[in-house]
């Protein structure tokens, strides 16, 4: 029972982090139709920048926020490189893979190859049903839920958010209404950068961050986003939770080395299911 609660809490926290990454995929895809495979890099930058700011004596809280802002800026730069040239979608997608590789090189040059970590907000761990839970897990859960609520409010309640939804829904009509669809695409990249950065900031205290963690983070985030067909933020959150829990229970009750294999198997099953669903919808 104790182990179960531990796996459950860990799985939920990690799942929410994956959900943050997945939402980055979703927002960028919805507005630009680009699958941004550099999404994991935002998280790695987020983690490393927080690490350096904390070591430089910047207070906790401020460091994390600055790192998220920096990740948003990196998102904007990646967005400009990816979509400013009016390239075919496939070319943009390849560019994001290139940006992911470039990010690894930059991260290695600046921070080297040693994994880094930092402690989250300190405080007492707490006990649920006999299981010791690190305080950071609670912070991850609360921070992610706050971010989801913020994003939902921004999209559901503000005029700008609705204009962004309009770009995703019908870019041609959005242009006719005077919405600058390309600029909205860049905003989506910034948002994706911030969400990815937040994911990295939150997860680094739980599991050390390495310069080349972006690919596995991107794959898990993409897999979670696929649950919602890359377009539904709500289903992407559910997808993130499914992957987070599956990972923890496989690692806990079976073997940590099977973690990635199970995640990838789940991804393939989801892709097949999505392809089937799309085919069925196409036949309607």
């Amino acid at each position: 029972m104790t182990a179960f609660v531990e796996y459950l809490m860990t799985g939920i926290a990690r799942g929410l982090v994956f959900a943050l990454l997945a939402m980055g995929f979703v927002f960028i895809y919805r507005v630009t139709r680009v699958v941004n495979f550099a999404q994991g890099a935002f998280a790695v930058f987020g983690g490393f920048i927080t690490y350096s700011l904390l070591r430089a004596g910047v207070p906790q809280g401020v460091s994390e926020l600055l790192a998220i802002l920096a990740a948003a800026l990196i998102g904007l730069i990646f967005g400009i490189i990816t979509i400013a040239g009016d390239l075919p979608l496939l070319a943009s997608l390849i560019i994001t893979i290139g940006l992911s590789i470039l990010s690894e090189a930059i991260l290695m040059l600046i921070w080297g190859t040693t994994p880094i970590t930092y402690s989250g907000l300190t405080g007492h761990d707490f006990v649920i049903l006999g299981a010791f839970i690190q305080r950071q897990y609670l912070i991850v859960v609360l921070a992610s839920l706050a971010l989801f609520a913020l994003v939902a409010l921004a999209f559901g309640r503000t005029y700008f958010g609705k204009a962004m939804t309009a770009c995703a829904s019908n870019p041609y009509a959005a242009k006719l209404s005077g919405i600058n669809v390309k600029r909205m695409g860049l905003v989506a990249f910034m948002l994706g950068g911030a969400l990815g950065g937040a994911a990295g900031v939150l997860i680094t205290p739980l599991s050390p961050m390495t310069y080349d963690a972006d690919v596995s983070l991107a794959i898990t985030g993409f897999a979670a986003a696929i649950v919602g067909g890359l377009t539904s933020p709500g289903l992407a959150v559910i997808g993130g939770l499914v992957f987070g829990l599956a990972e923890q229970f496989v690692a806990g009750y079976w073997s940590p080395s099977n973690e990635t294999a199970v995640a990838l198997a789940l991804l393939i099953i989801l892709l097949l299911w999505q392809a089937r669903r799309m085919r069925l919808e196409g036949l309607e």
Partner: protein
Amino acid sequence: MKLLESVEQPTPNGSIPSDALLATYNLVVRYGAAVALDGVSMYVGKGEMVALIGPNGAGKSTLLNTLSGINRPAAGKIICNGKLAHVPEGRQLFPELTVEDNLRLGAYRGGSRDPSPMYELFPQLHRLRHRRAGGLSGGEQQMVAIGRALMAHPDIVAVDELSQGLAPIVVSDIANHLVSLNKQNGTAVLLVEQNAQLALDITSRAYVLENGRISKEGRSADLARDPAVHKAYLGGQVSR
């Protein structure tokens, strides 16, 4: 709205008045090697209702998309002395947003975002205002599309295929709204239609576009009686 260098000879059509609200001079638009518009000169005067009729693929929608800045002309000139709003072919709403949000987004370029004038124009949209636009009937969607365009407070509204996929009674209802809008607010209307009968009935002037060129122009009533127009677009004998 935009000026492009006019590389060719002065327009052969000397009849475009200098105070036209919207005018094109020898407009050429290409898609790759294909010429979609081949020297189109036309105009819409202040408060005027003008029809643009012609067969499928003649370039009607291309002309509207060029006026709205979606397509770039290869040559020619567009002069617009006012604000143009475009109701695109097939309505093109934002289906997952509500009727009210669709309307409000029409004012994205600026001005009041209050949709209540549209509810006065189309009263039935008021009770539908919190419904998702994608779930409405074709006629209701066309009203939302027109309302969204009017939210931009245009001097001229260009409607592409008003009647497409709609029952005749719905079409005439919406057409009447356009006419009264034109009479009351002085909003000019450029009506692009395959349904030539409707278009010629409610407009005062018309152009026939064929293969990217204006093949005929004149008063709508005269064109409706023109045997060639009648044969090609009104189906059968002159009966008026």
